[in-house]
């Protein structure tokens, strides 16, 4: 029609025709369709937003459920009549096929499963359980620095426990472990001079990083530091080496701005006082990591590396040793920390060739450990008023306070009953992650 139109025909063209001709109507149609489409999309968007919101809230509900199921509730600490401290081992969950690698096999199995020490979630539960059973302090194991990378073997502490929600509620004292005379030590130290330097540097760095923390355990305003196997070190390297080592350690702490209170792993079944004179002089207090031959002497057969006997004898032996050493410390004006030990067996490590010695204490039980705790009370140093337990989680060596499949909270209850003060409303109920009925 339009192609036939001439100028004369203009007057006859209706408004509607123009609209059609100028595509106004199609445009209007297009707009109307677009508006419908827009409205439909807008409503779809609203719906979609609602759905997303519902899904997000469902997800957050599930996360909340997971958190309620798995995350440790706030601890309900109990007071204790003494400062109860436990050694704490990191490194679980590594893949070394050595200590700390679950694949090696363990005599005990934590209720938390085969956990990773660097996980703050694990530390949450550990701190909660410790505080609720009267343990106020952990002594995290720290290695000497063997490289220049600033690594001190304390990653588990710094990546895990330090980030626990409850970290500030537990006291911390560092525990320095070295290996120069450990058979098969893969990171051996060439000479003693290097060893002193490493010790100094390690303590300096640890001091810089941790001694100023509010929850560092102090005595006479000095951060406590436990030194492992000091009598072993004395046996190998002599009195002078002990002096130099401890001087280096004190210097390391001083250069980070702190005087340390050194608790030395000194107690042993051999009581030659002359042997211990210098090493005792160098420390502020005496204790033991453990005394594995406390209840039975190593067989006199040459090259025998196996010692197997009953845990009940071990407990009696501890009582004898504690009596002797508390008197010894008192005579020399040194502090004394009675050691406690819930058992020991490195049978699996020995059978697998990882350890070349075996100590197996038979039939350890929470009931006998309860006696050990009771025995120790008599020997508490009135000034320090402290016991030290080996260990919270030496799972490979079958010495663990932490709740396990094998004993539940049995060892923690024995300890709590001995040292903690029962609140008027009763002990806090034990809880574990994932309880079907919390």
């Amino acid at each position, binding site marked *: 029609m339009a192609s036939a139109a*001439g100028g004369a025909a203009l007057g006859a063209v209706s408004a509607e025709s123009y609209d059609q001709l100028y595509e*106004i109507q199609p445009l209007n149609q297009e707009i109307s369709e677009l508006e419908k489409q827009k409205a439909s999309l807008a409503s779809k*968007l609203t719906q979609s937003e609602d759905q997303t919101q519902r899904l997000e809230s469902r997800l957050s509900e*599930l996360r909340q459920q997971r958190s309620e199921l798995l995350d440790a509730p706030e601890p309900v600490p109990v007071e204790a009549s003494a400062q109860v401290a436990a050694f704490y081992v990191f490194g679980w969950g590594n893949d070394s096929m050595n200590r700390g690698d679950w694949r090696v096999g363990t005599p005990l199995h934590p209720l938390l499963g085969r956990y990773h020490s660097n996980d703050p979630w694990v530390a949450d539960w550990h701190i909660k359980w410790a505080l609720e059973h009267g343990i106020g302090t952990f002594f995290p194991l720290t290695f000497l620095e063997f490289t220049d990378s600033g690594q001190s073997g304390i990653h588990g502490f710094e990546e895990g426990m330090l980030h626990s929600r409850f970290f500030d509620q537990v006291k911390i004292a560092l525990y320095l472990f070295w290996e120069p005379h450990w058979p098969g030590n893969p990171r051996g130290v060439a000479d003693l001079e290097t060893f002193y330097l490493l010790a100094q540097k390690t303590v300096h760095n640890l001091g810089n990083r941790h001694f100023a923390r509010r929850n560092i355990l102090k005595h006479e305003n000095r951060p406590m530091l436990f030194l492992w196997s000091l009598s072993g070190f004395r046996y190998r390297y002599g009195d002078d080496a002990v002096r130099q080592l401890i001087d280096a350690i004190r210097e390391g702490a001083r250069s980070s701005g702190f005087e340390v209170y050194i608790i030395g792993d000194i107690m042993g079944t051999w009581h030659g006082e002359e042997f211990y004179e210098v090493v005792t002089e160098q420390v502020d207090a005496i204790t033991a990591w453990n005394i594995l031959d406390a209840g039975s002497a190593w067989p006199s057969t040459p090259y025998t590396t196996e010692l197997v006997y009953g845990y009940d004898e071990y407990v009696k032996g501890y009582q004898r040793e504690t009596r002797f050493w508390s008197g010894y410390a008192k005579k020399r004006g040194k502090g004394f920390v009675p050691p406690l030990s819930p058992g020991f067996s490195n049978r699996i490590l020995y059978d697998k060739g990882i350890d070349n010695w075996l100590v197996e204490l038979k039939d350890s039980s929470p009931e006998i450990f309860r006696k050990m705790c009771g025995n120790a009370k008599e020997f508490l140093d009135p000034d320090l008023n402290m016991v030290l337990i080996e260990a919270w989680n030496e799972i490979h060596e079958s010495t663990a306070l932490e709740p396990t499949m094998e004993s539940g909270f049995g060892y923690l209850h024995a300890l709590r009953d001995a040292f903690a003060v029962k609140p008027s409303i009763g002990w806090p109920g034990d809880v574990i992650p994932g309880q079907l009925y919390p």
Partner: protein
Amino acid sequence: MSELVRTGRRSFFEQLGAAAIGAVPAAFMAREFERSSRIAGLKDNVTMLSSDISSLQGQINRLDYEKQEVSQGIEQATSQLEALSTAAPPRPVDSDIKVAAYHITGWGTGKGFKSMDWSLGAPYTPLLGRYTSDDPRVADWHIKWALEHGISAFLYFYSRPDFGWERCLEQGVMKSRFFDSIDFALLHCNDNFWPGNPFGMDPVQMDEASKVTLDYASMHLFPRRNYLSFEGRPIVILFRYWDFAYRFGIEKALFWARNVRQSAEDRGYDVYLMGDFVGWTWQHDDSANRLVSRELDALTAYNLGQPSGIPSKLDEKGNWTLVCPYEKMVEAYLREYEYWSSFAKNMGKGFVPTVPPGFDNSLMYEMGVDNWMMRLLDPTVQRFKVMCESAKRYAEENLNLVSVEAWNEFQEGSVVEPSMEFGFSFLDAIRDTYARMPTGGWPEEAIPGLVY
């Protein structure tokens, strides 16, 4: 113009021809401009709408993606949550002797009653928490743990089908994913002397309870493949049988047994009747025992009341109380088994020794729930293991059965189920005594909530 070209249409002016333009009147021109600008407006509108639509579509697409991600998160979180509380299928271990454990199914189901109401307190707490027995998930874990530690049967308290514990058995235990993997039998208790029992002491009610129970069991429980039987006969244990005879007379006890047997027989079952018979040292009277045990096929004990040789005392409230070391009780149990296993053998009856991991109802006594108290001191796993080991020699060779009292008598301090206080130690003791270690080692112990 370009828009028109783009749309492939010709303009009005083009159609008129350039020569005609001069002739177009001003009004027309004005109208034409108005239309042009209207078209431009409309086109702008179209552009805006298209852009809005495209933006909306973009937002919807983004939300779709987000929804997909959140949905995946939900799916993952749901399955994680489920996995955290779901028991993996059991890995049963074989055992040289069949081990059956007495099992309470009333937890969390009633107020003020023992073995039902957690709020009364309990000396031990389950690793599962204070559960309710009608939850099949609880039964999943129980069955898994039992089978993986050499316990291959549960013996359930059963009074009558419409009572509370029995409902839990059906609604909880029997709905477990693993129920068919474990054997079960009934410990029939007609509740006659339980404080607070709803049936009173009416002997007619007691007889009725037994009849109804056996009718029901014959129709619904005995036919099940996993109902525990001996020589094809479903096993039924009569709770406190000797006590029943003592309280109501020997004839009444014999009637009870005959009533149970007859009720089953009427439905086509020849039951193997085991009496909870062994209880007190003063019962060593062969002639009385011969008479009372006449209707029974085998003798056993739920637990022993006072075999330690340490006498009970009347306390200031006039109630009987007994406190003695668990160790003494273990010795006493074994002395009793010596007598009773030999008595059963002479009578040509089966004998099933029971191993209790402890006993302490002092809390229930203090709460006024029980009017008697027995407390065994220091019930250690080591001593329990001695008991398990020693009980082996009293298990009658044909039945070849040992019972454990109990899986979960939490308020009587008699528990092998994993607890906060003892972990799996009592179950490990049972396993180490009776089960055979598979070549790959014992199944690894698992609990709900294991993230690692």
